[in-house]
């Protein structure tokens, strides 16, 4: 992933709307990916991406010349996504816990973690990528979010636990079960099947 694409802005004179459009086009996929993978919801990801770029617009004078604009955008997208999930979780926590969806696996049960050695074989690359995204989006939030933060955002376990305000032990359990659930989903795709249309 290239988080720091080159942004073409007009070199002389004040910044123009075209400059911001170019800026947005350079980063919108990265921002949207971050939000979509964290929330697991395309509509929410688009709302969050819009909010990220509106914040960027307010600071465009600074961001247009900053070499770390991509990092700033990614941080804001991550924070807004986590805040959104936190708000949602607080609102619905009570009801959600009536029927917690853990991908059909008991929290205290053994973890079945299949090998991915066959996953690469016999599947079209774009189809494989679509399967991965879909499997990731279908994980329960408490497994998906740590996985995304660890594997895509490259945060450490300690950082993730602190950010999500959960214990390190709980985080490691969620990550382990999330990986196992994801591997199971992916291996289903390795079995003979109808082509998946994202």
């Amino acid at each position, binding site marked *: *992933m290239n988080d720091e694409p080159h942004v073409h802005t007009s070199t002389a004179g004040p910044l123009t*709307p075209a400059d*911001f*459009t170019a800026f*947005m*086009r350079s980063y*919108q*996929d*990265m*921002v*949207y*990916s971050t939000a*979509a*993978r964290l929330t697991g*919801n*395309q509509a929410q990801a*688009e709302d969050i*991406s*819009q909010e990220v*770029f*509106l914040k960027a*617009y307010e600071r465009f004078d600074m961001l247009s010349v900053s070499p770390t604009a991509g990092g700033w955008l990614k941080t804001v997208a991550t924070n807004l996504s986590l805040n959104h999930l936190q708000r949602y979780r607080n609102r*619905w926590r009570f*009801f*959600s816990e*009536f*029927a917690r969806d853990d991908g059909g696996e008991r929290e205290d049960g053994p973890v079945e*973690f*299949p*090998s*991915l*050695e066959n*996953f690469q074989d016999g599947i079209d690359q774009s189809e494989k*990528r679509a399967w*991965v*995204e879909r499997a*990731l989006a279908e994980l329960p939030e408490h497994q998906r979010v740590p*996985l995304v933060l*660890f*594997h*895509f955002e*490259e945060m450490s376990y300690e950082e993730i636990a602190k950010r999500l305000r959960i214990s390190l032990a709980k985080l490691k359990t969620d990550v382990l079960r999330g*990986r196992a659930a*994801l*591997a199971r989903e*992916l291996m289903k795709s390795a079995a003979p099947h109808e082509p998946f249309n994202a």
Partner: protein
Amino acid sequence: MTDEHFDDPREKALHAVLRGQPVLRAPASLEQRVRAEIARRAERPWWQRSFGEWPVMVRGAFLALSGCAACICIAGTLAVLNGPGAEMAAAFLREAGAWRLLVQSVVESGAQMLARVSPGWWWLAGGIVAASAAGLLGIGATAYRLLWRGR
């Protein structure tokens, strides 16, 4: 992040699969939405924007007026309490004392009335409240499952 994080080769393989994922393509509507929202915000009159975006003159005038209003309030209060309005303030406090006695008598009367209610009625009222709360909870949980979780 290095491979030493993954003692299990299956975890390492999964990490490789995830890291190999390309960025997702943002919907075409995103750019249009952002531009439209920027235009909408730009068209708002200054008084509907945040204080930081108000014209400098207006911000200065607002701060000056706020300071004047605060000074008038403080000076007025001091004048009432220490100046010729002291008698008026004392009368007001006496009036307030009368109101306090009235409220106290109403509360005491209410407490006496409630004390006469038999325990059976209290149990019935408590049951109705509990049933209502449980009903609302059920409606909320059903609405969540039907309307929200399916989205």
